[in-house]
């Protein structure tokens, strides 16, 4: 059997003596949609920050296709290196680039796929112009694919909230990732937008990108994902298919309190 696409081995991290995560082990196979859930302060976003290389874990390591991409021994890697290797993400609070159009936002996602330097840009060398043309087409194609093409020239941060979410995800997809991390993609969306989002995420998976998401909206989680990892106080308490997690007494206790 081939190794899982993404593997977390005994991840732990402490901040100033406080343990935020401890003993987190999990695997994500290619083509899956997997969710991380848990009560407030369980360490879900911290885990995302580790996978995307923003934090280095105190113990343990993250591997992608069997290669260690984050951990104490490879601590020099910045998030942009990890993005290059094929992991990208979105954020809990949308971080679209201010003042840039939807198209330009998505074109930034193509950054690694291009290499025009400073001088090529300053003097509009033909190579740079061709490259611009290429990634503009590529970005437009992505926008078409995810029904955003008619918004391409609008300033991204002026769009309605639900669309901003989708632009942010499309931008991340423009990096051509193997795996995309979505941090609370449904937060702040109404029911219609929530359902649209579920369709959208399935579309992403069908296009060959593995999805790992943090989500509170249980309707989204249960209706969408293949597996759920449940964290409580930085420790995993369940890692299973949704129906099993839903009836897991530990999980119910974590959410609702003792019987």
């Amino acid at each position, binding site marked *: 059997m081939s190794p899982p696409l993404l593997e977390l081995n005994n991840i732990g991290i402490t*901040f*100033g003596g406080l343990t935020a995560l401890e003993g987190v082990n999990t695997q994500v196979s290619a083509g899956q949609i997997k969710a991380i859930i848990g009560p407030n302060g369980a360490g879900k*976003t911290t885990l995302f*920050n580790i996978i995307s290389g*923003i*934090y*280095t874990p105190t113990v343990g390591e993250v591997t992608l296709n069997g290669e260690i991409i984050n951990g*104490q021994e490879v*601590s020099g890697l910045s998030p942009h290196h990890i993005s290059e290797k094929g992991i990208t993400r979105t954020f809990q609070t949308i971080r679209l680039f201010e003042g840039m159009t939807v198209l330009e936002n998505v074109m930034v996602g193509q950054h690694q796929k291009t290499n025009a330097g400073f001088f090529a840009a300053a003097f509009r060398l033909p190579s740079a112009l061709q490259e611009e043309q290429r990634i503009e087409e590529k970005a437009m194609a992505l926008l078409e694919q995810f029904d955003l093409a008619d918004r391409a020239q609008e300033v991204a941060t002026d769009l309605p909230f639900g669309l901003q979410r989708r632009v942010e995800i499309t931008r991340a997809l423009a990096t051509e990732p193997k795996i995309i991390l979505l941090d609370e993609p449904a937060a702040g969306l109404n029911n219609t937008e929530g359902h649209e989002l579920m369709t959208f995420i399935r579309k992403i998976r069908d296009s060959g990108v593995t999805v790992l998401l943090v989500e509170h909206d249980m309707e989204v989680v249960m209706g969408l994902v293949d597996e759920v990892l449940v964290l409580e106080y930085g420790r995993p308490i369940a890692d299973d298919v949704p129906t099993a997690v839903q009836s897991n007494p530990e999980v119910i206790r974590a959410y609702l309190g003792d019987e």
Partner: protein
Amino acid sequence: MKVNTFFKQTLAIVILIAVVSGALYLGNQKNFGWPQYTQLALEGLRGGAIYALIALGIVTIYNVTGIINFAQGGFAMLGAMLAVSVNNAQQLSEMGVGLRLVLAFFVAVSLTTLVGLLIERLAIYPARNAEPLTQIIITVGVFIVMQGVAFLIWGSDQYTLPAFTTLEVRDMPIRFSGILIKAQSFWIWGTVAIVMVLLYYFFEKTMWGKALRACAINRQAARLMGISPNRMSALSFALAAALGAIGGFVLGPATRPSYDMGLTLGLKGFVAAIMGGLVNAPAAVLGGILLGMIENLGAGITKAGIKDIFAFIILIFVLLFRPDGILSKRETVEKV
């Protein structure tokens, strides 16, 4: 990360050793002995005490409002110049010098405090939600206006204030085995010490002081206590203005006050505040004192003209190696 920290620490130590040995070498070239070094350090301590006062004002405002106040040096200038005006006033020539100085002190401090309050209400409050860079530029604008008005009132002359001990322009030097200290230095140290004690009392024992601290620690929780951040912002500017004015007043006799004395003082105050990590008042005081001594020693062993450069060398080193201040123990965690 670990390798990085180790490298940084080693580099810092190597630089420190290089600087100290370089300084000693240069000192030797000039045949410096302990008396000279002590003399330089003590003279530096005088400036350092003033920097400490200015840094305290900057730290207070920063803690409460998050604004770096470029006009802080202007408060010191205003304190000194207002004192000069009172002292030189024709109408008061009947009065004894000592009494006049006491009056000058109260006029300088209260008027400057009022100016601080006005600045906060008119220039800072309307932009309280603006970007930090915008706010910084506003305080720069305030400083330019203050300096411009000062030039209008006092011209470009350098004035004098009588020394507090002799009540004359010429101060009394005090000798200790080869070291010479002006009596005004003791007034400066004494005043700064008293101000520190009063500030401590204010922040620790009064409800206003506690409310200011609460606002600095957690603005939202402070609001839930019924503390208004807007009022605290005004209070912090008033307090900072008073601190600056006191500094300018006691420094007056030791320098020649003029309309443009604020810039350098303000900048040195920043360096001191940043040495303290911008939020830590006692560390800022220590920063001010250290800064005064280092720059004076540095100028002594090299050239007097480049005295100011040391402050900024220190500034850059502190920012690069100890961005949380010289006393900080924690490692900065990058926030997302």
